């Protein structure tokens, strides 16, 4: 089993991707800021994030996991799970 952690590079890539979809500066996002409550995201942008992750990273993410991706930390966890990356704590 690979014990690779989610690298700083991966984190930066995911932050940039989400910021791009939500039309924010990457610096505006924290790991726990809510896409909906703090950044004004809507359900179609949530789908766009999912689609971009699948396309840019070449992973498949089940639709039901979209509800988990409400913060950057949520995105890290879901992507780590499906891309075969371990999280920093795993």
């Amino acid at each position, binding site marked *: 089993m690979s014990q690779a952690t989610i690298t700083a590079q991966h984190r930066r890539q995911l932050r940039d991707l989400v910021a791009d979809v939500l039309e924010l500066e990457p610096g505006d996002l924290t790991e726990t800021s809510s896409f909906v409550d703090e950044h004004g995201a809507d359900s179609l942008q949530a*789908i766009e994030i*999912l689609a971009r992750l699948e396309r840019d990273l070449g992973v498949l993410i089940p*639709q039901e996991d979209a509800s988990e991706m409400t913060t950057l930390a949520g995105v890290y966890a879901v992507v780590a799970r499906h891309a075969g990356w371990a999280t920093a704590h795993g």
Partner: protein
Amino acid sequence: MAEPTGRRVVVTGLGAVSSLGIGAPAFTAGIRAGRSGVSRIRGFDTTGFPHTVAGEVHDFAPRRLLRRLDPDEWGRSSLFAAGAARLAVADAGVRPAELSAGNAGSAIGTTSGESAVIERLTAQWVEGGFKELDPALVRQVPANRIAAAVNRELGLTGDAQTIATACSASNYALGYAYDMVRTGEADLMIGGGADSVNRWAHAGFYRLGALAEQVCRPFDVDRTGILTAEGGVALLLEEHDHAIARGARVYAEVLGYGVNCDALHPVAPDPGRIAECIRAAHRNAGVGPDDIDYICAHGTGTPTNDATEIQAVREVFGDRIPPISSIKSMIGHTMGAASGFGALACCMALYEGFLPPTATLAEVDPRLGDGVDCVPGRARAARPRIAQNHGFAFGGNNAIVILRRMS
């Protein structure tokens, strides 16, 4: 609750270009048997798509069906509409001279218009730039051509209205056609709808998480979404006395209709507004909840639609919900044609005496509450007198048509 004044309007001709067969008899036989019209997609390359089935029409031969239109000059949706209209007119036994001499027209609903044509043009553009666009295809794009195709094919010189209220568009078209005949502005009207299976609708519904993988199961506890589908459907609406005088077979009478808009969410339906739409249709038709014997549901098979639809019906009907079923369990979601196929199924149910089934239903979702009869499996013998046909659309466009048995 006064009935609207004006002439009585009846349905005397039915035409279907469907995944269950060409012509209303083939379509009806499929519906009664609970047969599936779903198959592996041939209309576009499904490489990369996790879901690869749809309700496509495979045995449509426009050259055999159409007498005036050159199929090379028209898009798939226009050909579906014109083919269905040609079948409806033949079914009604109306003489061609009567169609072109009288005040006759068409109102045809659609969601995506000539989507298959637009898709081919987009591919040409992406591959070779604007200069590669085939001018003959460009000419086929405008959505208004769908109703124009019907008028050209039949020689109708009255209205040619394409109505683009998406997945409730056929019911809008039938309402429009009904008003034209009722008020005396037209003597004969074709009402119906047409849409083509295309890649972007398939991709869009997949991405929304609203596309089932293999089977569309409306009202089922395990329902996962729609299946995209296509087809053309046409009903010939005629003034009652005119129909009787020429000894026409009358499938049903159009009692009235109701339309409204949620004006809320782009895709989430609103139960309160749908309930209001049902009440508006009842008022327009001069009937009450106790008069309705059957509801042909919008019943897309998405978790949200079916729960919202039952909630709305419960708001109007209380604990006595009439049998309510979804033909999308067999033909999938034919988009702009969907409520037209529903209306055709209602006409045949009233005329022949049966309730269309929700063919794929295994277990009714208990969250829908008690007393929900979705007619599982195959058609049920019955003598419904009045049927209520639902059509709801993205954008919150709701349209409901009420039909009555004649004899």
